[in-house]
């Protein structure tokens, strides 16, 4: 029957295969990401009307919310790749998990900074100990812990496995942190922040947001593939296929 799908996936797991596959897919992913991103920005910054409460400041939403989604999505991808890396000891899964971490950290950082820039005119403060903001900050620390642990090992594969284990502990921790921070917020009568009012978003604002979400997903694929390719070359530097690539690039 459809035997070729597992076979193809199996082949894809081998580094030279994935290197070539990622090399062909990467420019396309980036091109579509730029295209979608530009469309979303045009729709969000030019076409969408100003919000009746927040004026034009709400336009930060078109990068803030997709970044926040990506920060969680990438953590989930990293955790799944970590489980695969630990259970099946797949080299590719280790690389995917470890190279996802910096991208996720970048998106988390963007989320925090843009949220802060949005919060200043809206709530009059750069930072408030709201449940969502605090969870996002903890998420950044989780990412940094994974990256730090990975780089503290001399042997990269061992570092990748240790950091993968930490990533799995982290994903168990994320809902616990969220729950506890929520509880803490109700206890201290903290300022509950509503970014969007109870009213539903109008379509003019919704489609750029969703388009931007697609753009960030494609960007993640492009960036991840670039990073994985680099890492595969470094890890397999003794192998023949890497030598061939090195010689090819020298000729250019």
């Amino acid at each position, binding site marked *: 029957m459809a035997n070729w799908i597992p076979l193809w996936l199996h082949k894809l797991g081998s580094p030279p295969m994935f290197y070539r596959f990622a090399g062909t897919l990467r420019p396309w992913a980036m091109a579509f990401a730029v295209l979608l991103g530009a469309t979303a920005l045009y729709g969000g910054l030019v076409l969408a009307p100003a919000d009746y409460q927040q004026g034009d*400041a709400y336009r*930060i939403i078109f*990068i803030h919310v997709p970044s926040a989604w990506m920060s969680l999505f990438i953590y989930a991808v990293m955790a799944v790749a970590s489980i695969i890396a630990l259970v099946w000891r797949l080299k590719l899964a280790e690389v995917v998990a470890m190279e996802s971490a910096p991208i996720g950290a970048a998106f988390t950082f963007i989320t925090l900074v843009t949220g802060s820039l949005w919060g200043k005119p809206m709530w009059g403060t750069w930072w408030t100990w709201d449940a969502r903001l605090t969870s996002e900050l903890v998420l950044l620390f989780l990412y940094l812990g994974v990256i730090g642990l990975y780089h503290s090992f001399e042997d990269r594969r061992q570092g990748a496995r240790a950091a993968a284990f930490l990533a799995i502990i982290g994903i168990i921790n994320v809902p616990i942190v969220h729950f506890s921070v929520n509880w803490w917020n109700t206890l201290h009568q903290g300022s509950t922040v509503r970014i969007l009012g109870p009213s539903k978003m109008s379509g003019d604002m919704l489609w750029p947001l969703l388009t931007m979400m697609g753009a960030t997903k494609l*960007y993640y694929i492009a960036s991840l593939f*670039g990073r994985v*390719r*680099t890492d595969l*070359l470094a890890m397999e*530097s003794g192998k023949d296929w890497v030598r061939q690539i090195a*010689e090819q690039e020298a000729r250019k």
Partner: protein
Amino acid sequence: MSSFFAMGGYAAYVWPAYAVFFTVLIADYLSPGLRRRRNLRELRARLARQSARQQRNPTTSP
């Protein structure tokens, strides 16, 4: 056009947010390329050393 850049008075918040977004992502996108070029250069240097050594004493091949 100038009203577009003024962002209804919120330009000081909206544009830095977009600047951070693009700066961080472009830096993230370009960084593996630099690392890759350095790795390949080191690899080529190592290969060149190896072949030079082999030419000098061809009996002791690895």
